[in-house]
């Protein structure tokens, strides 16, 4: 009998009996050691939270890549938004995760707030527009972090701000693009990966085409997948299949949410407001064409220009190995600071701050 409601249907993707069977097949068919990386904070959390990580055979190694938007925010960007927060007449509007990310001198937005800076946590970029309406005497700076999933929501918000003449609304665009970061990772000789699990919701927007090079140029099996245990297990089986046949491919396992050509409407809004630019990534450095900057008539919404703040290429915090963790070169518990000076209560680096960070997930679920 078919499930009656969409909710019943979604529940089927967690079915324990099916999961056990898929796990048995993975064990039976695994041809040898396999290191796979996911590059999405939601996958990181799903793999730990569902218990999948501990159920996988020892020969399968799970790495969390640069897929947590807070974690990849560069030290120079953190310094710049802390500087913006200290400007007169500015109210910072931010997603909550950025509050505790330490800046170069160990300060964070949370501390800046305690010192009197005006900082508001918002759930959506759109909520920041309400702040702009409520405080016409101030300038609202929205901190735009996130990948291709989030950037269109910020672009749509900027378009509404323009339509409504809310000129006191500004954005610090730190958005980053996933495919150029994957290219940079695979070009790093120290990064050893057998396969990639591609981010489901980023793919909702960009589709499958931008990932083709992963299989064609780098020979890495890559699966766009959903976030339920069955999705992730099926992705691993697809990877094992490709290893056995020796034909790496990019496969869309998540077709219930990802059309092969993504969401053209969201991309249209995104590229009306933003243009592709270089970006600084924590741990990965400057990657050409991997970021988004405000374009054309929307440049007047750029917070850095309006408030005369620059982003500098600052060095990492002393001792912090978040960069190596993001590249899969180091497991969180091998960092000398892990569970010593760096814990979720006293984070040194962003991988321990964000709930989607691999260090925080490791601390919560694997200790």
């Amino acid at each position, binding site marked *: 009998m078919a499930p009656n409601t*969409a909710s019943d249907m979604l529940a*089927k993707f967690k079915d324990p009996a*099916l999961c056990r069977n*898929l796990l048995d*097949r993975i064990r039976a068919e695994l041809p040898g050691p396999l290191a796979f990386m996911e590059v999405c904070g939601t996958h990181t959390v799903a793999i730990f939270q569902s218990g999948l990580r501990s159920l996988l055979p020892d020969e399968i190694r799970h790495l969390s890549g640069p897929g947590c938007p807070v974690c990849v925010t560069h030290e120079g960007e953190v310094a710049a938004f802390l500087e913006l927060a200290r400007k007169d007449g500015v109210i910072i509007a931010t997603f*909550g995760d950025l509050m505790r990310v330490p800046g170069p001198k160990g300060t964070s937005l949370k501390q800046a707030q305690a010192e009197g800076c005006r900082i508001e946590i918002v*759930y959506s970029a759109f909520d920041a527009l309400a702040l702009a309406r409520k405080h016409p005497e101030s300038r609202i700076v929205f901190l735009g972090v996130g990948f291709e999933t989030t950037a269109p929501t910020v672009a749509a918000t900027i378009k509404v701000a323009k339509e409504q003449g809310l000129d006191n609304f500004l954005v610090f665009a730190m958005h980053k693009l996933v495919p150029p970061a994957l290219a940079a990772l695979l070009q790093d000789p120290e990064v050893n990966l057998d396969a990639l699990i591609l981010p489901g919701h980023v793919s909702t927007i960009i589709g499958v085409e931008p990932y083709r090079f992963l299989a064609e140029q780098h020979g890495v099996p890559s699966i766009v997948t959903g976030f339920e245990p069955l999705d992730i297990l099926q992705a691993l089986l697809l990877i094992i299949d490709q290893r056995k046949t020796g034909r790496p491919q990019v496969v869309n396992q998540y077709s219930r949410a990802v059309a092969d050509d993504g*969401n053209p409407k969201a991309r249209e809004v995104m590229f009306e407001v933003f243009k592709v630019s270089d970006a600084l990534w924590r741990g990965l450095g400057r990657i050409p064409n991997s970021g988004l900057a405000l374009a054309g008539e929307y440049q007047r919404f750029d917070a850095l220009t309006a408030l005369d703040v620059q982003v500098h290429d600052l060095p990492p915090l002393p001792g912090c190995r978040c960069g190596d963790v993001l590249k899969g070169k180091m497991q969180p518990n091998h960092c000398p600071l892990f569970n010593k000076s760096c814990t979720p209560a006293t984070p040194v680096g962003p991988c321990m701050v964000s709930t989607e960070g691999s260090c925080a997930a490791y601390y919560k679920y694997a200790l």
Partner: protein
Amino acid sequence: MCLAVPMEVKSINTELNVADVEISGVKRQVRLDIIDYPASVGDYVIVHAGFALRRLDREDALETLKLFQEGLNLQVL
């Protein structure tokens, strides 16, 4: 912050371009500016940072489940 979740559409206000959505008792209002395919009441949409991104394809989800069933010779649906 990146968590995107499927939520059920409870009502739609085309004038304001918003929908009321719900999952497990959690209610939100989401913008419809960037959804590629119009959703109807009762559909599930993927919600991220206050915006609906895409309607979930029920037929496709059932097809995926059917593949699991056939591949594993199990009664799923």
